[in-house]
């Protein structure tokens, strides 16, 4: 072309990026073209983590295993379940009685859902106690809250599928929460139901959404993990690693310890599943759904009870719904409400007590959520709700202002020394 100037330098372009693999042979050939093998090596074999991690840092791995098992058992159940108001209950009974190992697969799926919440609550507690939500991990914390909301949605949808009394009335109460939206509430609820009440149309779409959200969780978990590999793990000292004295490589050190954590967790899970498979459920859900009779005492699954208690403690419908949703969403403001420079509660004497009180409040509200909404229960529920919000809105900023942190070591390896000398108290049960 005549437009080319003879002496001009052009930027070279490389659309072909094949190469750069540290591997040879077939592995290298694949890795040169699809660099996931070197990524895996980089992120899981050579990846450096703080050496002070305790078993509280196993729950991420445990949750991943739970999620995989939930998807595998869910897929198996989906091959036998019928999302039709006429057949749903019977198809679940057929799974329990006729399908090969159906009883095992269903009990595993049911109890895994509960154990997923147990693990996630411990995981969130770890974050609260050791300040894992602080700079630079705020976005990771927010992604975690999104996962928690999605978990609650899919757990609720899954619970409606057996189409027992608790399924039906749980679905009715929870979908009716949307009727609290001013002006359009009723239309939104009718749209969600595809009918004028919870029925066949609702069940069918709940089944589809239960699947969809399960896979959305997988996607958002991927973001959570990618973010983790950018910001790195927090640790019980709350101090960032500085040199190789502070870290160990992810494999084999963390992988082997995580494996121990997973095995203990799965052992407890199997024990509950085998010896008390219905302990965490409700007997009324073995009564087929009846739109004419509400069970006398309607309660959600145990993992929703604290938030259900908050809903019930507000006497106004719309405000109750807002309070319930914001009681979880408010976790997202914590990185900014708690502006103390010190992450770990090990060095925060006042905040540590606040976190323990918050845990106590969680269990009190859980108890209240399962009790009838009257008399003394209502009063305790209201106090518990007030404390829940005060923890975030008042205690977090106030403690950040007035608290004088304990003297801190300069590095993680010094932290480990202090631990050996007994200068620092940690949660012993979880020490590795």
């Amino acid at each position, binding site marked *: 072309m005549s437009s080319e100037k003879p002496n001009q330098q052009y930027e070279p372009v490389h659309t072909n990026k094949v190469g750069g693999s540290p591997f040879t042979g077939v592995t290298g050939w694949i890795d040169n073209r699809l660099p996931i093998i070197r990524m895996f090596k980089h992120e899981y074999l050579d990846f450096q983590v703080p050496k002070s991690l305790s078993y509280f840092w196993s729950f991420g791995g445990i949750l991943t295993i739970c999620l995989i098992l939930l998807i595998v058992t869910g897929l198996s159940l989906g091959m036998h379940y019928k999302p039709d108001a006429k057949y749903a209950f019977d198809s679940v009974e057929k799974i329990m009685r006729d399908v090969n190992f159906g009883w095992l697969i269903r009990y595993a799926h049911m109890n895994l859902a509960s154990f997923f919440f147990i693990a996630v609550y411990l995981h969130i507690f770890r974050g609260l106690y050791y300040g894992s939500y602080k700079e630079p991990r705020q976005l990771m914390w927010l992604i975690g809250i999104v996962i928690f909301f999605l978990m609650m949605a899919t757990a609720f949808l899954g619970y409606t599928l057996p189409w027992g009394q608790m399924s039906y*009335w749980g679905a*009715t109460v929870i979908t009716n929460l949307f009727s609290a939206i001013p002006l359009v509430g009723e239309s939104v609820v009718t749209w969600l139901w595809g009918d*004028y009440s919870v029925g066949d149309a609702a069940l069918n779409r709940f089944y589809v959404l239960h699947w969809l959200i399960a896979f959305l969780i997988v996607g958002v978990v991927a973001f959570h993990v990618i973010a983790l590999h950018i910001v790195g793990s927090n640790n019980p000292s709350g101090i960032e690693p500085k040199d190789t004295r502070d870290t160990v490589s992810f494999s084999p050190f963390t992988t082997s310890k995580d494996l121990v954590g997973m095995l203990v967790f799965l052992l407890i899970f199997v024990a509950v599943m085998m010896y008390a498979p219905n302990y965490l459920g409700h007997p009324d859900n073995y009564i087929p759904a009846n739109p004419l009779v509400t069970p006398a005492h309607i309660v959600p699954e145990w993992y929703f009870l604290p938030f259900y208690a908050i809903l019930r403690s507000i006497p106004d419908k719309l405000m109750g719904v807002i309070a319930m949703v914001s009681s979880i969403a408010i976790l997202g403001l914590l990185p900014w409400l708690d502006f103390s420079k010190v992450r770990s509660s090990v060095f925060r004497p006042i905040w540590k007590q606040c976190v323990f009180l918050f845990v106590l409040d969680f269990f009190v509200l859980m108890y209240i959520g399962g009790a009838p*909404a009257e008399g003394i229960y209502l009063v305790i529920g209201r106090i518990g709700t007030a404390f829940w919000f005060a923890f975030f809105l008042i205690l977090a900023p106030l403690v950040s202002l007035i608290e004088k942190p304990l003297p801190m070591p300069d590095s993680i390896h010094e932290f480990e020394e202090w631990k050996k000398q007994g200068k620092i108290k940690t949660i012993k049960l979880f020490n590795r």
Partner: protein
Amino acid sequence: MSKKNNKDTSTRRDFLTTVTATVGVVGVGAGVLPIISQMNPDSSVKALASIEVDISNIQEGKEITVLWRGKPVFIKRRTKEEIQKAEQTNMKDLMDPQEDKDRVKKSEWLVVVGVCTHLGCVPIGGKGEYNGWFCPCHGSHYDTSGRIRKGPAPTNLEVPKYEFVSNNKIKIG
């Protein structure tokens, strides 16, 4: 590129961008509408929207429950005492003030949708502090006119559209 006037060219590009964006938005909207609309009740569901009920067998003080649009409807033949109580209620005592006469067609018969206006449970008849209905889920009390008196429910039990076809028959919906 035009040699004459850069301004003209840029206006022409802006115009094309705006037109493309507008057509794009309308197109996406038209595509999303069926996806949203498919979730609403279809005509076969709407077709089942009215039922006829024989009420000749209901004795004074008794109520029956019928299923209408998948929801229970309470048809109650009220006693004289219950009617009196409902009619003489002071409007100031009500959370959602409504005269009893505005809630019934014949004072003997009360027809209400048996769905708690809080979160949709079915209240239990003859229970609660006002001897109307009591919702076991979250503790709402309704009186003998189905009006909310105490608890978290925001409004009275809904009165469905109905008419007396004859003395012994009503049509709901």
